[in-house]
């Protein structure tokens, strides 16, 4: 609980209308998009300016109050849950697009801009900002930087950090740092900018973001390929990339996901397939069509039961809409869901799928798979119930083995969801000890009192 003097100070910093203290409001900042953790904050501040954030941080630092930064709260690893209470610092009210420069392909935004709205406005200028977490309709640009987010587009266009040019961040002591700049190239000093991409709110509060943009592709084509086994689908992905073809998106969906997505969306998805690859090609009309034809040939060659271009835009939209429902599909299927984010070198994808299948079989625990196959990023999920200790322990073992398999294949714990509360127990195992020591040193330097998003990343909270 915060004492009245602190609350009074917060009120004078952000104003009464930007401070939430009622239980009915605090509850709505106690969760993110996961369903395992929940923790109430003591207060929520919704600052409007960098200087308000600076003042809040000075106060929090002085009184050692935990501060958990939050954007849209759509993250999926527990990162924005105020697990130690204290203050949730939510940036949704800093939502101005400050500039869009068509001549330099650079935009500057405040952290609370909703990703989808940002891209809608950019589209009017013929531009786009490629990082495309599936939660674009709710997540904020600030949140995507803090999570170094990405999505299907990662395959061709890369992830958030590749688009960052400049950041303004408020440190734990209230200092305001300006990192990077507005130029495409910038070779001054250490890459401090990139430190904040994926920092998950543990190093500072992101208050301004300068990103580079791309022109919207002139044409987009969608195709689908159906397979009789998940492993063959995985082979097809490796074969496509191996042939030097780099489509915009290659998404993988297994049969369980297909059925579940169809149950909740009634879109008419091809539920008979064991695995579906959903592929998008960007370019000119000719080049996109040509690329799709090449991929169709590869898929048929490898034994796809069906491979064809989407009939029209309506079918293409339907398929992508179906893909977007994957999150709801899996999370609505059990009281607790552990959805992983393991990522392996692209050519190891078939092997990862094979091993996941094998692990599931061995434990008699079904594993459901969906993922951004094109960049080796798989989201295998296990359904469990945290209240059923035995079942949950078993599910956790399955997860551990899958992670182990990914690491053995030269992969990583998380491709895009981040560590948060979910994966911290694997950090020591997955990371080089020297690299981990450097990270802890950086954390100590920037946040000596450990007030920024405490309980995440480092501490082993366990689950």
């Amino acid at each position, binding site marked *: 609980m915060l004492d009245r003097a602190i609350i009074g100070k917060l009120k004078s910093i952000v104003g009464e209308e930007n401070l*939430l203290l*009622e*239980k*009915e*409001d605090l*509850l*709505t*900042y106690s*969760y*993110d*998009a996961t*369903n395992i953790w929940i923790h109430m904050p003591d207060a929520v501040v*919704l600052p409007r300016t960098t200087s308000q954030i600076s003042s809040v941080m000075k106060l929090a630092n002085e009184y050692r109050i935990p501060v958990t930064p939050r954007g*849209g*709260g*759509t993250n999926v690893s527990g990162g924005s849950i105020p697990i130690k209470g204290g203050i949730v610092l*939510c940036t*949704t*009210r800093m*939502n101005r697009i400050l500039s869009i420069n068509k001549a330099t392909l650079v935009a500057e935004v405040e952290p*609370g801009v*909703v990703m*989808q*709205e940002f891209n809608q406005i950019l589209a009017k200028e013929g531009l786009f900002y490629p990082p495309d977490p599936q*939660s674009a*309709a*709710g*997540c904020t640009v600030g949140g995507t930087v803090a999570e170094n987010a990405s999505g299907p587009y990662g395959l061709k266009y890369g992830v958030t950090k590749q688009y960052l040019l400049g950041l303004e961040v408020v440190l734990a002591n209230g200092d305001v740092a300006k990192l990077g700049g507005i130029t495409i190239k910038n070779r001054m000093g250490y890459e401090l900018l990139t430190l904040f991409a994926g920092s998950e709110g543990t190093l500072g509060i992101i208050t301004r973001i300068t990103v580079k943009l791309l022109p919207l592709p002139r044409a987009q084509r969608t195709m689908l390929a159906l397979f009789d086994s998940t492993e063959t689908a995985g082979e097809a992905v490796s074969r496509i990339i191996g042939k030097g073809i780099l489509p915009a998106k290659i998404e993988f969906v297994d049969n369980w996901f297909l059925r579940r997505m169809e149950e*909740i*969306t009634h879109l008419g998805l091809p539920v008979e397939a064991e695995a579906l690859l959903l592929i998008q090609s960007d370019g000119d009309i000719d080049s996109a069509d040509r690329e799709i034809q090449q991929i169709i040939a590869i898929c048929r060659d490898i034994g796809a039961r069906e491979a064809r271009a989407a009939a029209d835009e309506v079918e293409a939209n339907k398929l992508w*809409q179906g893909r*977007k*429902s994957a*999150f*709801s*599909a899996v*999370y*609505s299927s059990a009281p607790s869901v552990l959805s992983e984010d393991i990522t392996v070198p692209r050519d190891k994808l078939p092997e990862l799928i094979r091993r996941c299948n094998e692990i599931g079989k061995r434990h008699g625990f079904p594993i459901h798979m969906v993922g951004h196959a094109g960049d080796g990023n798989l989201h295998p999920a296990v359904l469990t119930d945290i209240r059923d200790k035995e079942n949950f322990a078993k599910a956790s073992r399955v997860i551990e083995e899958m992670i182990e398999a990914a690491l053995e294949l030269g992969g990583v714990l998380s491709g895009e969801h981040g560590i948060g509360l979910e994966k911290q127990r694997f950090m020591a195992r997955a990371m080089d000890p020297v690299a981990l020591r450097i990270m802890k040193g950086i954390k100590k330097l920037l946040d000596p009192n450990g007030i920024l998003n405490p309980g995440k990343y480092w501490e082993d909270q366990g689950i």
Partner: protein
Amino acid sequence: MTVTSDKKFREIERFRRDHELCMKCGFCISACPVYREELVESAVARGKNQLVRGLLNGELELTGELEERLDKCTLCKTCTQNCPAGVQIPSVIIAARADKVCYRGIRFPYNIVYRSILPRRILFGRLVKAAGLAQKLFFPKAEGTLRHLPLILSGLGKGRRIPQIAPRFLRESVNEVNSPPAGTPVKLRAGYLTGCMTEYVFPDLGLKLIQFLTRNGVEVVVPRKQGCCGAPVYMGAGDFETGRKMADANVAAFKDLDFVIVDCATCGSAMRDYARYLADNEEREKLYTEFGKKVIHITAFLVDILHLPPEAYQAAPDVLGKRVTWHDPCHLNRHMGVQEQPRKILKSISGIEFVEMNEPDRCCGMAGAFSLHFYELSQKIVDRKIASIVASGADIVASGCPGCEIQLMDAINRHKLPVKVMHIMELLK
């Protein structure tokens, strides 16, 4: 969950599937008109559903703070439209309002209005008449024909400018049965629920609608025993008990008719949804379901039932040469699934130019009592709509819901814009 709490939240229980299917993905965030202004989690469907969850598991109680957050929803259903799982959080909210009413009642003066006045058409009519007189006496005539909303309808007016109460109500001008003119064969017989706004504020709209239908071969029956649709009472305030009385009255009033035409989208969707919310026994379930199927918006009736040819739609002289845009009422678009029919009509009217505005399906922020409880918020929501209307360059914004129209008139008047708000039927000759 204990047995007592199950009973306590009986209505929410009926929508448990929706309540539980929300996975907090947050896809509803950018879609929500209330969230867009407030930018706090309790504004959006995901947050509201979590509040209901808190209520069910005992973390929260039915406090005034909770009530206010549940009330702060226009029921526009954009969240459902954007939900990958099609979760109907608005239903959970309506149900939660109903369960709240069982324990906390309805705030004054709405309790009197909803429970004692709205269900009694004749009494309501007399009061509205008195209010209209008061409006005439006490409020200076504002720009054009706009006056301040009388006390009885607004709670406290709040400076809102809407058309004055009509001197002669619709039912005083029309017969119960209105036959096509001599020589025009009767193609169909249909009932017409006039709705409170058309009845008391826009009777000319009702006259025009009846005239248009009769000229096109429809015998229009305006049952004398019909009443308020119940939208503000059961959807807005969660008073299901009174809502059932109103539903029963309307079901009985239209029992011999195959169609219940509405010019008001809100009335239409409220009546379509009687079964969904108000059916508390098998008999009502059956009656309400059958009744719901008969309810149809005038635009859908003209296009899907009468199949009128484009020539049937001629522009009224005062709209000739005008540029017209269309505002999709949430209750017409997302609740009743009618999007194309009004556009088809607008495109058929020769002598006007139809243009789409940006985000035509964005909520206007009226939502009945919502706009009275949260007037400033409602103004912010409608101002975005006004910006879209202005950007479209339209002279006239047409719609299919007198509720939306009042909201748009108020805002257009506030901004002193040269744009006219009309019901789509008023465009026709």
